[in-house]
């Protein structure tokens, strides 16, 4: 994976010192909270309900054991012994003190990590396919392009005060594992006439006005990738709405202008930008690529011994096909039955790091579904790995099942939330596990958000739940039919909302209906698409 050179390190170190100075000025009273807020946000420091929260960037979701250990150590040293993995492939600490924040950033910098631009109206951490570099179905590894974009977007002088936050995802497979078209810019690396290039989708997003990004350019040559991105951003920075925070994302600009007109403006700016020479030298991409070269894979067993049914179940559920047939990518579920989705203790984080060192060429990935991946595990090592995971309460065999739900922190932690998300996740996983229905349901993506900002991706859930505040009482809206995969779709609300107990019953009702009427091989989503909303509404409200 990518390693900093002296320049990258210097940038991160400079930022630590800059933030130390900013925090000092805030504590000294030279900065008001209004002035300090955007500065701390650009260093990932929020003020949540109970304390400051620090969001650490994990660029394109990739990290090594040493970095993972540092994350576990910070949880123990500065926080309350745990961290929370997010839907942006980041890690959040919930109990941070402002006085400690610069020291934590310094600890992160020692292992080539940071919290730069994990918040604020700037270009956020670049996300990618969590199986990048390992998946059997990818065209190329998308991460070198993500790294090129990471450098370009870090401290970009023109795009630090955008109308609103800006999220970019890069993938390189037909299968979309990164919700690419629900990003401000989604880039798919594609091949055309033997050349590799980038396909640009612009103006997707969730939040209060969910939109699927339209394609605005089917092929940008790789030596113009940064220039084209710069043109997309400049048009947005100049013309994105600033009169209304809720209409400031690029999706609204693209929608109001129309994709065609937005594209025309981008192309015009792009033509101008090409003359400015903003593209980094082509050698830079060639320098980055070897960092992501395949490790030394060895031939070995192609199958596992299935005599232990618990192990066999975990292998079936939690492993993903690798490009080398003696390996798989193994998914470590952070969704134990009744647990808090995405939370891991400092000890668990260090255990995962050690296992990556032992079994996965020192590499880990964070999934947007709030799980962890060991990307390159020898099939012959799977049993030993599973045994170690199971002992650390990390062996839940539930990837892509209803128990593998996404849930945002919700009203238990988040200052923006209107309702709690985590208790719903806990009760649903307990209920479906106890009834044994999880296995029958197969792939079912449940996503829960505690407010309209949709950090829990409820718009993209096969089943989505949105928590709202109804006269001071938590209330939950149910929606069906969303997808964040390559068949991207936005879920539709079923009807009036429910109480906490009511929405759990409602999830049971819609899944029961699916089990009754599904045809061979149909997932919940397929059945919904075939029969439509009406039968589900009937089951819920009649």
């Amino acid at each position: 994976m990518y390693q900093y050179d002296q320049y990258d390190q210097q940038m991160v170190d400079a930022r630590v010192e800059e933030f130390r100075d900013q925090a000092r000025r805030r504590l000294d009273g030279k900065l008001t909270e209004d002035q300090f807020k955007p500065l701390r946000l650009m260093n990932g420091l929020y003020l949540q309900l109970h304390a400051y929260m620090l969001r650490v960037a994990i660029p394109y979701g990739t990290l090594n054991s040493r970095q993972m250990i540092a994350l576990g150590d910070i949880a123990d040293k500065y926080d309350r012994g745990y961290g929370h993995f997010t839907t942006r492939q980041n890690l959040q600490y919930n109990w941070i003190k402002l006085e400690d924040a610069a020291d934590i950033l310094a600890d992160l910098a020692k292992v080539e990590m940071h919290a730069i631009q994990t918040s604020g109206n700037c270009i956020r951490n670049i996300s990618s396919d969590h199986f990048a570099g390992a998946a059997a179905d990818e065209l190329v590894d998308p991460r070198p392009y993500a790294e090129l974009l990471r450098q370009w977007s870090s401290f970009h002088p023109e795009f630090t005060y955008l109308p609103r936050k800006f999220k970019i995802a890069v993938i390189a497979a037909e299968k979309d594992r990164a919700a690419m078209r629900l990003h401000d810019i989604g880039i798919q690396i594609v091949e055309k006439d033997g050349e590799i290039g980038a396909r640009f989708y612009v103006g997707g997003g969730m939040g209060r006005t969910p939109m699927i990004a339209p394609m605005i350019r089917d092929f940008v040559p790789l030596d113009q990738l940064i220039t084209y991105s710069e043109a997309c951003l400049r048009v947005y920075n100049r013309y994105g709405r600033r009169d209304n925070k809720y209409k400031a994302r690029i999706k609204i600009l693209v929608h109001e202008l129309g994709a065609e007109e937005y594209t025309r403006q981008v192309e015009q700016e792009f033509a101008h930008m090409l003359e400015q020479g903003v593209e980094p030298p082509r050698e830079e991409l060639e320098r980055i690529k070897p960092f992501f070269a395949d490790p030394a894979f060895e031939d070995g067993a192609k199958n596992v011994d299935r005599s232990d049914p618990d192990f066999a179940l975990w292998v079936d559920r939690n492993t993903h096909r690798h490009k080398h047939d003696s390996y798989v990518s193994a998914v470590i579920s952070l969704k134990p039955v009744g647990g808090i989705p995405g939370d891991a203790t400092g000890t668990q984080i260090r255990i995962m790091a050690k296992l990556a060192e032992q079994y996965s060429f020192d590499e880990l990935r964070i999934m947007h579904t709030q799980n962890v991946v060991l990307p390159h595990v020898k099939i012959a090592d799977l049993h030993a790995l599973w045994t170690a995971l199971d002992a650390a309460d990390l062996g839940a065999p539930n990837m892509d099942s209803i128990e593998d739900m996404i849930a945002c922190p919700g009203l238990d932690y988040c200052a923006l939330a209107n309702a709690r998300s985590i208790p719903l996740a806990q009760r649903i996983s307990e209920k479906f596990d106890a009834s044994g229905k999880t296995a029958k349901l197969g792939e079912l993506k449940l996503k829960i958000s505690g407010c309209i900002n949709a950090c829990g991706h409820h718009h993209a859930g096969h089943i989505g739940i949105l928590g709202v505040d109804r006269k001071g009482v938590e209330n939950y809206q149910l929606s069906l039919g969303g997808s964040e995969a390559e068949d991207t779709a936005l879920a539709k609300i079923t009807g009036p909302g429910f109480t906490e107990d009511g929405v759990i019953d409602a999830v049971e009702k819609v899944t029961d209906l699916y089990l009754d009427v599904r045809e061979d091989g149909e997932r919940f989503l397929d059945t919904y698409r075939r029969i439509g909303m009406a039968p589900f509404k009937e089951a819920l409200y009649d």
Partner: protein
Amino acid sequence: MTDDLGTSPDEVQFRFRDDEPADHGTVTVDACCDQTNAAAVRIEPGDDARTLLPFLDRLALIEVNFPAYGDGRGYSSARILREAGYAGELRAVGDVLIDQLSHMRRCGFDAFAPDARLDEEDAARAFATWENVYQRTVDGRRTIQESRHE
């Protein structure tokens, strides 16, 4: 005649130019396009900097106003003007704070007239924050990627 909108040279706290500060009142972008003799103009966030391109030769001072620091349109305005070859004074005025200085410099500003005077020491530190830079902009600095492959 349009009202003088400009910031007096006395209010310029930081200036990275050797020439004499332009001592003209600035006019709005609209007025600048209508008049033939205006030598100083003030751009508001909603103005299109490109409407000034035909007049750059006669302009000695362009002020870019930041009514609120969070409105980043002025960064694009500045870069567009420099990209078009504007060589006169480019002055950031308004809600200009310590932590925006280095980025503004990179976008081509060479004079700063903050509404509230800034701490000189903090500002000096802010201007010097980035020893190296990732992006090619109009400030002509060599990028990290260029240094890596020279």
